């Protein structure tokens, strides 16, 4: 969540406060947007704004020339003044869009236009308190049968927002406008993903379980925070001790987004470090038939170019080591932490569990590798879990931390010397769900449900099993119905072999309790609704 930082131009007393001390009107000019300290939006240039603060000691507010940090809630009307409801619809085109403009610098707001399918409709603002509102009928935008997937763009002066209409349960990929720049929205019956292109080299900002309508990456509300700081998956690289800060601001361009027979694939590419000639690309595949995301991140150094004037007198002699860089790959995934949030991973014959009790408690393994090829993150009190899979042959070192608001998993693969022209990849598979199981000798699994396109409910499990497991079946129950399904093996290049099973409950309903047992491993909490 972002917030404004302003420069105070004046402070005026309004008398006694309702809660405490003095009530003050604080006038300010916008300076930058926190937490990144980026420039304030152009539409706020030269504007003087004001907020009300109450303080027993007015010095805590400050005086002209001082800075003023606003809360995200206070800042929203100026940073994101144009709002539309609904923002996203699955199913039918809404008859009406409700648009609100929470701030404009002049007495009359700019014209309101809604555009889709090559057509435009103008809206009429009306004043409602300290904001403007408008209701726009969508019918004039389309012929008799509106499309099942559409992006209705809402424009008002310098502001742009939109309403995305998606077909329920069908694979879709759409570009959405957002305060973070363009976001790719991919979804199917299992998941909806959002991947911003303007930062983090394309990270996974949102992972929504469709059946339960549960968001796995919810950041804490009302806290100024960078994207991915407290929720989401972002890949990282390091060329020395610390992770490179450049990845956080690496923007990507789309090299293609397409629907294939097995899923929806998104390709992004960008420049991680122009000075170091380091490029990066991301391939994300949202599988349609399973609750599964394939994720491949590549970093590549450009081939060496001849150095101008290399033979000029006085130029130091170059050796091969001069062209060598160090490259270390990893990722950082954060979830809002509950008291019972924990990370499990298998290595050798051990099941390691990390549930830190104290903020800033950290585990950075030096001598044990995640040789099980998996990490399972569970939040029992909110019935959410996420399984990461990676190649057991080339595992990372475990690292995790409890931060102020989040539980963070941040493993690193070993560093390697990198020559110009060389590429390095990080391949993962992810599966999120509502049930999970893990044992030292068995492996780990996650179960998820989706609503069938016809009637009924599908249940699916994704598992990483140790070769020692004798039981290769998955038992799933939904209400009183029970299904036993053989686990099938699937090889994911770069992520190893996983096992999966899908069960169909034709008469099933989502409200019924769901449980699973996979390869003899019971769920860590059962009977979930």
């Amino acid at each position, binding site marked *: 969540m972002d*917030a404004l*930082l302003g*420069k105070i131009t004046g402070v005026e007393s309004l008398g006694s406060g309702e809660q*405490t001390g003095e009530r003050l009107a604080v006038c300010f000019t916008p*300076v*930058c947007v*926190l*937490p990144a*300290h980026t420039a304030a939006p152009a539409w706020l240039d030269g504007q003087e704004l004001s907020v009300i603060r109450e*303080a027993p*000691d007015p*010095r*805590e*507010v*400050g005086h002209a*020339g*001082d*800075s*003023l*940090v*606003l*809360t*995200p809630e206070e800042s929203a009307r100026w940073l994101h003044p144009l709002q539309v409801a609904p923002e996203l619809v699955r199913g039918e085109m809404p008859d009406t869009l409700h648009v609100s403009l929470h701030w404009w610098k002049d007495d009359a707001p700019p014209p309101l236009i809604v555009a889709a399918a090559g057509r435009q409709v103008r809206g009429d603002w009306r004043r409602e308190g300290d904001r403007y509102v408008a209701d726009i009928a969508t019918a004039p935008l389309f012929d008799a049968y509106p499309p099942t997937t559409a992006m209705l763009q809402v424009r008002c002066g310098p502001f742009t927002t939109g309403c995305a209409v998606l077909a329920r349960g069908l694979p879709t990929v759409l570009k959405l406008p957002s305060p973070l720049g363009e976001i790719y929205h991919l979804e199917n019956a299992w998941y909806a993903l959002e991947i911003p292109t303007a930062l983090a080299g394309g990270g996974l900002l949102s992972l929504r379980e469709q059946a339960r309508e549960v968001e796995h990456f919810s950041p804490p509300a*009302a*806290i*100024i925070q960078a994207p991915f700081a407290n929720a989401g998956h972002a890949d990282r690289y390091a060329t020395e001790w610390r992770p490179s800060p450049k990845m956080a601001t690496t923007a990507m361009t789309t090299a293609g987004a397409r629907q294939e027979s097995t899923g929806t694939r998104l390709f992004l590419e960008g420049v991680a470090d122009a000075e170091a000639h380091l490029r990066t690309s991301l391939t994300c595949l949202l599988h349609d038939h399973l609750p599964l995301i394939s994720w491949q991140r590549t970093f590549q150094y450009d081939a060496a170019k001849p150095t101008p004037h290399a033979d000029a007198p006085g130029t130091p002699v170059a050796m091969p080591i001069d062209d060598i860089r160090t490259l270390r790959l990893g990722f950082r995934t954060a979830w809002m932490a509950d*008291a*019972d949030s*924990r990370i499990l991973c298998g*290595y050798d014959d*051990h099941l*390691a*569990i*990390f*549930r*830190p*009790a*104290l*903020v*800033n*408690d950290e*585990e950075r*393994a030096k*001598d*044990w590798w995640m040789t099980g090829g998996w990490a399972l993150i*569970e939040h*029992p009190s909110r019935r959410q879990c996420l399984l990461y899979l990676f190649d057991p042959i080339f595992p990372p070192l475990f690292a995790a931390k409890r*931060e*102020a*608001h989040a539980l963070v998993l941040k493993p690193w693969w070993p560093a390697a010397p990198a020559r110009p022209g060389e590429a390095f990849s990080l391949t993962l598979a992810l599966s999120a769900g509502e049930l999970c199981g893990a044992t030292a000798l068995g492996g780990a699994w996650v179960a998820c449900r989706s609503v069938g396109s016809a009637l009924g409910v599908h249940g699916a499990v994704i598992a990483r099993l140790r070769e020692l497991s004798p039981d290769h079946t998955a038992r799933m129950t939904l209400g009183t119905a029970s299904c036993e399904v053989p686990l099938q093996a699937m090889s994911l290049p770069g992520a190893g072999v996983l096992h999966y099973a899908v069960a169909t409950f034709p008469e099933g309903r989502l409200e019924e309790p769901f449980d699973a047992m996979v390869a003899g491993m019971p769920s*860590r*909490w059962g009977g979930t609704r």
Partner: protein
Amino acid sequence: MNLFDPRTFSTDWEIMVMDRLNRVVSTEKIMGFAGALQAEFLLPIVVDLDALELPLGVNTTFPQFCDRILRVTDRATAIFHEYDLDLFPAAAHPTERLYNSSHIHVGTLTDECAGLLLENRLLRYAPAFAALAANAPLAAGMHGAYKSYRVRYQANSNIRPNSRRDPRFEQPIWGLDAGAKLFAAPTLEVRVLDCASSRLLLAEMGAFVAAFVHLLGTQESDEELTPDLYREYLINRWTAARDGLQASFYWQGKIRPVVDLLNEMLDACERELGKLEAARWDFPLIETMLEKRVCQADFARALADRYPEPQVFTSAYAKLIRHWDAFDTYLEQASVLDPLPPPDEEAILAAHLQAIGEGTHFYRTREVMSFPPVEADAMMERMMRDGLAIRDVTPERGTVLSRTGGENG
């Protein structure tokens, strides 16, 4: 006996600097300002990690110390203000892992053996100073449980509990609550105090700490630092971090409110204060704090209650405490706080257990009160015996502990 001759004292006061974008100014940027102040005052003003450090020279009297504090801080404020910067005298940054102190140097100590033995007698009083100076109730994203997260978390290893010292076997150690520092200066350095936000309070605390250490330096004692007394010191240290001036300490087997102890300490060093040209009536802030059991942490907490967003709080806090008397003003109007009981054995066990989740390295629980290995092992065995935690040992990870029941899956 008189270990400190001539009688001197000073402070190393670490103060962050903030710009008008709510950012802490880095060490490299502050160095120039430190140099300018150094040249102007001929004092060894330097920098520390993302902080200005104000060593205020060798002082022989309280009025001289006060005068230096006022002149240097007035000038520092003015110099930084020219660049739209403000001093931020907080003991901990609310969101970043930065801790700051007002170390008190007590001189002039030249007998290292005697200084080391003095540590053994002084360490039990260090928690009282910690309680008085507690000023870090928000730190690195943590809040709510302690009035000094700096003391609780040992300021990123910069203040660690003292061990019993034996000059026959010692090597120079740096970073204790209170330690003879002859390898660097002819002083005994009391490091446990959180950075003061009030410069008048710093003046009072500096003279008080110095006078009390001078007093101990005149007293011969055969009293042995026993394991029980050492345990009391460690528990009191934790209690001081948690409760500030509301704390009650264990004192030779009895329970004593820390304010009573501090009152006695002030009375005891009356003569030593006199040698520094000070008297108890020169310490109105300390007097009011002891009367009300209110410390600087209470002031910061009251502010934080009204600003739940950490960066908004940091901005308000920084704007307030750049006024050196903000705490002084608050203290005048603050209500009296109640004393809190010390932790009994069950509460001590609970505090150690709270540090254990699952797969927690066993040292996390040892770090709660820094019990020595014999005590810490006994605490761990009790947890196992009572079924409160289980232990797992692997060659790769060593010993990890997991709580049983509760949030366990």
